[in-house]
């Protein structure tokens, strides 16, 4: 509403009206450009983030569980986690080019660190009683990881997934704008360069909606993984 009213008093190139933005999107949709872009973006995002989630859980468990691995590797994990991931873009382009693989690598790289850090912490906070229980039952190290450590780290894993998703989404859009122009980020970049403001606003709305869908998926995963927890009301 505010947007629509404000747009009456501004030039369309600065602030187009919502109807204009929808019109711009419709233009894109008619040419199938929009659907294709969304599909491209979602493919890179979901594939990249799923890989990061699985690999991150695995690596986080190993670093959290084995003391020597923790001493040797955790400083590097923290160092990577506290620096902006886009400084690695030139290297990624150098090694992987500007195509789909490069985007995928960048998404994984950007989003895996919070998953690793959170799972790592989760593992280190597992109740010692449960570890003692598994020991009393003669569990091997591998069984311990599978039956006790993985489950014990779930709460932290979910927190890591939430943080990781935001990073994965940012990385997807960034890579589409700065590698070869692809997907929603590519469209955004393309229409920015020719000052097509209605399309730009329309695309921003699309990006925000996509992020909400992605967060919804995380919520579903959370409900599935944490259904054993007493509900806090």
């Amino acid at each position, binding site marked *: 509403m505010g947007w629509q009213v404000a747009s009456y008093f501004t030039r369309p190139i600065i602030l187009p009206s919502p109807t204009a933005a929808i019109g711009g999107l419709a233009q894109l949709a008619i040419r199938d450009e929009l659907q294709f872009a969304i599909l491209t973006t979602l493919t890179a995002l979901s594939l990249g983030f799923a890989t990061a989630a699985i690999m991150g859980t695995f690596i986080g468990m190993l670093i959290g569980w084995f003391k020597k691995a923790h001493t040797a590797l955790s400083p590097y994990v923290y160092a990577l986690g506290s620096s902006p991931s886009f400084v690695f873009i030139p290297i990624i382009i150098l090694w992987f080019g500007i195509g789909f693989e490069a985007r995928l690598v960048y998404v994984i790289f950007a989003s895996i660190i919070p998953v690793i850090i959170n799972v790592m912490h989760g593992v280190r906070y597992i109740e010692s009683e449960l570890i003692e229980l598994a*020991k009393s039952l003669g*569990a091997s190290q591998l069984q311990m990881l599978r*039956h*006790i450590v993985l489950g*014990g780290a779930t709460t932290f894993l979910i927190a890591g997934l939430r943080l990781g998703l935001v990073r994965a989404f940012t990385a997807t859009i960034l890579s589409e704008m700065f590698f070869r122009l692809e997907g929603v980020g590519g469209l955004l970049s393309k229409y920015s360069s020719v000052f097509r403001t209605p399309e730009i606003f329309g695309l921003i709305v699309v990006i925000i909606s996509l992020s909400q869908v992605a967060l919804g998926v995380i919520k579903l995963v959370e409900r599935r993984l944490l259904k*054993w927890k007493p509900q806090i009301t």
Partner: protein
Amino acid sequence: MIDIIDVTKSFLSVDNSRLQVLLQVNFHVNRGEFFTILGPNGCGKTTLLKIIHGLLAPDSGSVLIQGRPVSLRDKTRSFMFQSLNLVPWKTVWDNIALPLVLMGQNKSEIKEKINKIIEFMGLNGFEKHYPHQLSGGMQQKVAIARALVTDPQILLMDEPLSALDAYTREVLQDEILQIIEKRGLTVLYVTHSVDEALLLSDRICILTPRPARIKDIVAIDLPKPRRVSLKNTQEFSRLRKIIWDKLFS
């Protein structure tokens, strides 16, 4: 069946000094016997039980089960923890299945054994519940079921009833008595409750305050089968006084 030979154990305390917990503990437990370790709080009863199961290593001395050194790989023993240690993200069914899964048994075998033990413990209808959805007494039953599902010969119980209210506690004391009679188990039981020790045990081993040594081992010749109502008899009161005096002298 179980030999505890010269077991000594100390821990490193916070100020880096050595805290002597167990001092040359020796005893022998016979097959089919209910043997209780009784002692004041914090004297090292739990430490002793964990050493007997192989969860802790003694500084010196040894534990022999049927003449062989104790090992965690040996599945003829089950350990029941004071804090129950049910896995919160596993259902009742999966909690009971855990020892069998870790042993690598196949699915149909596991299913059959669990069905049997669930029936035996009266846990029907709770298979899909998570631990936090159960009362303390029910959680206790799940822990007992998990301990029995591997069909052990020896049961090590560390104050398993201490977290329960008085009523549930008596009900479960009765239940434990019946289970042990039915299954002919050898039991090592740790408690600080004199009444519980008297009701359940064939022999009671009384430990001194830390560092724990054996003060006395008393045979309890109350008639069997025993039931909770035994607590109201004169003979029970007489024995209670004897144990009490030994514990606090």
